[in-house]
């Protein structure tokens, strides 16, 4: 894997900067070997160098930021507010994780009787009973598709005046801005640029996109009933370089599948750097 001084330095620098990779040496080696040519390796190194793999101290800081927004800057009052997970199916998800863990931070700021609901559709009953200030909470906003659906659902199904504000630990800056332009009020504690199109420009961008597409062609095009095409460059082409695995979380489907897609094109199991836990994958 190491061919000379430059390779050695690049790999050492990567480990120094991203020390979570120290415990994933075999997985990293496999990924680098998977790349094959120098251009692919350069792209993967560049992406890993910019990767946000949250550690507990960063995660705690972001939970503090979101809770500070809710209590001090949202303009809501706890008597009228509802903190609602966007989870809408039976499978547990990170929206519920954030909802559960942020309660402590909100409580410390003086809101000790804020109503919380951990299943999206159950929230409607509570809103109809009078909690007209709705705080939707989730971990990560990638393409924004899920959030749009939830906001539209509430707008269609709740009569009378009510307000919605959405809170996220992290998200893709472009998508957050699009949602704001669409009139969705959103607070995102950590805004990230897209991993390829937000970083490269001009011919470099075209080249990087082609390299990533070639890499994705080396992955299994389908796992069970899940098509790789749906996750190309991350779900909704979100291009995320982010994971909460270091804090007992999951890797969002917004992340480039090259880092977590479990099979290669020969249906051989890959030892991946990240793990995406999702039914059917």
């Amino acid at each position, binding site marked *: 894997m*190491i061919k000379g*001084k430059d390779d*050695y*330095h690049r*790999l*050492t*620098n*990567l*480990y*120094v900067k991203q*020390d979570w*990779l*120290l415990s994933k*040496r075999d997985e990293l080696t496999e990924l680098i070997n998977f790349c094959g040519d120098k251009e692919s390796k350069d792209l993967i190194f560049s992406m890993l160098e910019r990767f946000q793999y949250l550690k507990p101290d960063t995660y705690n800081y972001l939970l503090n930021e979101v809770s500070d927004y809710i209590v001090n800057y949202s303009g809501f009052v706890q008597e009228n507010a509802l903190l609602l997970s966007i989870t809408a199916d039976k499978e547990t998800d990170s929206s519920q994780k954030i909802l559960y863990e942020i309660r402590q931070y909100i409580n410390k700021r003086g809101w000790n009787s804020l109503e919380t609901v951990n299943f999206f559709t159950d929230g409607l009953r509570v809103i109809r009973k009078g909690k007209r200030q709705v705080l939707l909470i989730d971990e990560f906003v990638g393409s924004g598709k899920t959030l749009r659906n939830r906001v539209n659902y509430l707008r269609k199904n709740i009569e009378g005046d009510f307000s919605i504000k959405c809170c996220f630990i992290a998200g893709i800056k472009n998508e957050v801005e699009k949602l704001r332009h669409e009139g969705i009020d959103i607070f995102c504690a950590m805004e990230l640029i897209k991993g390829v199109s937000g970083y490269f420009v001009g011919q470099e961008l075209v080249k990087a996109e082609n390299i990533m597409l070639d890499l994705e062609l080396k992955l299994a095009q389908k796992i069970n009933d899940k098509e790789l095409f749906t996750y190309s460059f991350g779900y909704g082409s979100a291009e995320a370089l982010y994971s909460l695995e270091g804090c007992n979380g999951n890797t969002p489907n917004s992340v480039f599948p090259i880092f977590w897609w479990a099979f290669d094109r020969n249906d051989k199991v890959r030892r991946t750097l990240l793990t995406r836990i999702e039914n059917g994958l």
Partner: protein
Amino acid sequence: MTRFERKFLIDLYESSAGLYAFTFFSRYKIRPDELALLINKYYSKGLINYHEDKLLLTENGRNFVVKKIVSFKKSSGNFSNIPEEFMVPRMEINLPYLPNITDVSQEILKITEEGDLETSIKEV
């Protein structure tokens, strides 16, 4: 601190302009992840700087090496200044060894009046 870490710090101490990370690979075949672990450990203690692939001891780092490593080598204690002619090759751990009792110091091995051996090893 492992023996390799001592070597690592002494190498840096002896090189006032610093050393490239690759130099440690050339000298000791250390893997990038192993070296990164050392870099992070000693950087977080404020003992080294790492910039543009090069490692350099900080002022604190140089003081640390002088106090904890170099000065230890120059100790005036009896056991750290054994004359060259009395030195023998270092034994491997668990290598069987039978000492010549007559050459063993009386401080270590006491012969009782009855001629029985009394050592610092007691029955338990």
